[in-house]
Structure formats: C-alpha cells, structure tokens
C-alpha cells in the first residue's frame, strides 16, 4: 500500500534541464561569474553544487566549490540526535564573494538559517544566494530561494527526495 504513494515528479532529464536553467540564471543575476562561489550543504546539497559547477564551466570559468556541514549551528541541538555529515571544506576566502548556497530540498528553512550563520565564521560575503532543486513549502522562517528547480506543493507527512536521477515524493 505504502509503495503506491511513491510518484516521480521530475525525471533525470527534467532535473538536468532545471540545473542548466539555474546555471544561466546565476550568470545573469551576477553579470558573469566574477567572485561567484558555490557552497553545497551537507549532505544533500553537495551534488547540486557539483552539477551546477559543471554547467557553469561551459558558460565560462568553473567557480570554486565548497561544502558546509551545519550540524553545530542548528537550532535543535539537544532536541534530537545530530548526525554530522562529512567535514566542512571551504578552501577559499569568502570575503567579498558572491556565495550561491546549494541544497536539494528547501523545506522549513532552518538548515538555511544555520548555514547563513555558519558562513559568517568563514568571512563576509558580498552576497548570499540560495539555489534549490525543489521548494516544497512549509517555511518556518522568513527565507526564500533565489533559484528554484521546481515549486512543489506537498503535505508535511510526505517525503521528498531530489537526486540527479529525479525527484520523488513518497
């Protein structure tokens, strides 16, 4: 019975096309790629940053990529088990950079809030933008994405998975 609820919302090709469009939007919004860096949120956002970088490389120079683990900045430390992803790796200075935070699914916005706070510890970017594959709604904080693969109305008891192979609700 549970399996029947599973449905594919975007195919692998759809996700690929969304990424290509987002790449062009990033170039358009930033008037090129000068100072643009990509930061993928551990763990689900890392592949998004990599896929975006691949597409941006064809539009000019590939921007540097970092990954950010926000476990220690979350607002629910002590309320639920925190399982850190891989270790944060930001091998470039953020001062003056235009950071594009990349994640797979935007939901409550709490991870993004934690990420914004974590970024402060690495420097002062000139701007921070947010790119997500899926915006599924139910925001609990005043946070909105700058680049969206697909807006997807969902209910809270559904699970959304976004990978390069497609987007699935179950």
């Amino acid at each position: 019975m549970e399996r029947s609820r599973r449905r594919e919302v975007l195919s692998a090709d759809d996700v690929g096309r969304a990424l290509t469009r987002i790449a062009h939007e990033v170039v358009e919004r930033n008037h090129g790629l000068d100072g643009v860096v990509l930061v993928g949120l551990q763990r689900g956002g890392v592949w998004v940053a990599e896929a975006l970088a691949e597409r941006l490389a064809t539009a000019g120079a590939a921007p540097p990529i970092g990954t950010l683990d926000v476990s220690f900045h979350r607002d629910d430390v002590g309320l639920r088990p925190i399982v850190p992803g891989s270790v944060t790796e930001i091998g470039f200075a953020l001062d003056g950079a235009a950071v594009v935070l990349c994640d797979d699914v935007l939901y409550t916005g709490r991870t993004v809030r934690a990420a914004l706070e974590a970024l402060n510890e690495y420097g002062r970017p000139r701007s921070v933008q947010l790119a997500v594959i899926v915006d599924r709604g139910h925001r609990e904080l005043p946070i909105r994405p700058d680049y969206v693969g697909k807006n997807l109305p969902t209910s809270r008891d559904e699970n959304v998975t976004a990978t390069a192979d497609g987007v699935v609700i179950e």
Partner: protein
Amino acid sequence: MKHLLSIDDLSAADITDLLDLTDHMVEIGQRPIPKVPALRGKNVVSLFFEDSTRTRTSFDTAAKRLSADTLNFAVSSSSVNKGESLRDTIETITAMGVDAFVVRHRSSGVPQMLTAWTTASVINAGDGWHQHPTQALLDCYTIRTGLNRRDGFDGLTVAVVGDVKHSRVARSDVDAFAKLGARVILVAPPTLLPTHVETWPVEVSHDLDSVLGELDVLYLLRVQRERMDDGLLPSLREYSTCYGLTAARAGALPGHALVMHPGPMNRGVEMVVDPGELPGSVILHQVANGVAVRMAVLFRLLGAGTDLKGHA
C-alpha cells in the same frame, strides 16, 4: 552517553564514533572564527583538585569553542579549605545549575562517586592511578591521523614506556589502543609495572632496545620524580640510560614511527633527545588534538538529544 569515566565504558565503535566527530571539531578549530553555537546555555564546571596545565586549559578552550559557559572552580580558594566535604561542594554547585563537571582528583574513583551526587554529566579528567579517558582519546586521534589509520589500529605495534604502575595515562591508553586492535608492549623495569599485569591485553618487556625496530608508535610516560623516594628506581640517571629516548634510540626507530608523550616532559630523563628535532614527534599535535577531542566529548554528552547509539 551520560558520563565519561573510563575507557572501559566505551566500545571500539564508541571510540571510533568520537574520533569521527573529532574530525569536525578540528575543522571548526581551523576557521577564521573557531566558535560554533552548539552548546549555548550549557554550563561546564571544571573542578581540579590536582594541578594541571594542559588538561584544564584544553577543556576550557573546548567548552568555549562550543559556546558553553565555563566556570573554573578554584579548589585552593574555596570552602574546601574550611572543611566542606566533597559531597557538599558538588551539591552546592549542582544547585546553581550545571550541565557537566570536569573532574580531576588524586583519588581513584572520585568521578564515579560524583555521579551519585549530581544530575549533571561527569567527565573524568584524571583520577589517581585509575583513568584519564580524554588523554587516551586524543592519543588515539593523534595516531589515527599521524599514521592515517581511520579504520582502527590492526597490525600496529605500540610500546608504552616508563612508570606504568602509577600512570592513569597508561591504563587508559593501553585499554583504548588494544580496543582499536593494536598490539601493545609495556616496557619498564619490574618495579614500575603494575601488579596483575598478566591480566592486561599487553606483552611485557624490560629491554627497550630490543623492541624499538618493530614499533609504529613509541609512547613515553612521564617519570614521576616523587617516585624516586619510594625506592623503585636506583637513580634518574640509570632510568635514563636504560629507558630514556636518546638520539641513538631515536635512530633505531622505523622511519614512519611516531614519538608521543602526554606531558609534562622531563627533559634529560625519559626524553634525552630534543623532541623538536625528532621528525616523528607528534607531541604538540597531541596538545592541539586535545582541544578537538574534548569538544567531541562535550558535544556527545551535552549536545545529543537522545543517545545516538540507542543503548537498548
């Protein structure tokens, strides 16, 4: 995990889990602003009934990097001097709202007793000859990174040299190294070996020179000068001749071998050669890793809502 009292309480998986978490803490330490808000509002009290430089400052730094509040209880200027009992002291501080005690005491078992008197987490920062678990964890982390052994110490040979009998560091380290799979050799004169050493997961040798060539890690313990009065050693000079790390002995170590020491070092006794000139010396890494390991311990005890391991 509520308390950290002894390496005995940890499984190999628990140790590996803490060392994995330490990787994250090392990264935090490398940030331009090495501080995260994870333990905001938590109160960590350090209670040192014995002198300490590195352990105390290391815990203090660790707590601050996680944004916990820290309170240093200075025993020498406290009501302990008016005869207040340990139990009353603990209950008084607990009543002010404490999330963790970091305790060092000259008597074995004091941290264990504290757990009965307080609702806070208790971290053993050294009790008598018994245990010093965070030292063992930071030593494991230093070996893991120094020899690139993320998956355990299978096949590594570690010699722990010196006053094993009176050493809580040796007891904790031997336990931890053996749990992770290392072969451990104790090297000491018979007077400085513990009774019932045959129950330890170790081999025993009295001849340092005969084992040097097969070591991956040479771990020197501090010679506790106060032991000289107990007649356990003829003289410091003789100890140094038989068990001190001289330039010749350093040369007999395999090229990749690490040299470790928990500090404070007795130069000219167990450490004859200048450790700064030893390529394998990771003694300062041990100190640096101490902060990150203690952050991992504090976060694991105070930051997890439910037990990650789900000890059912």
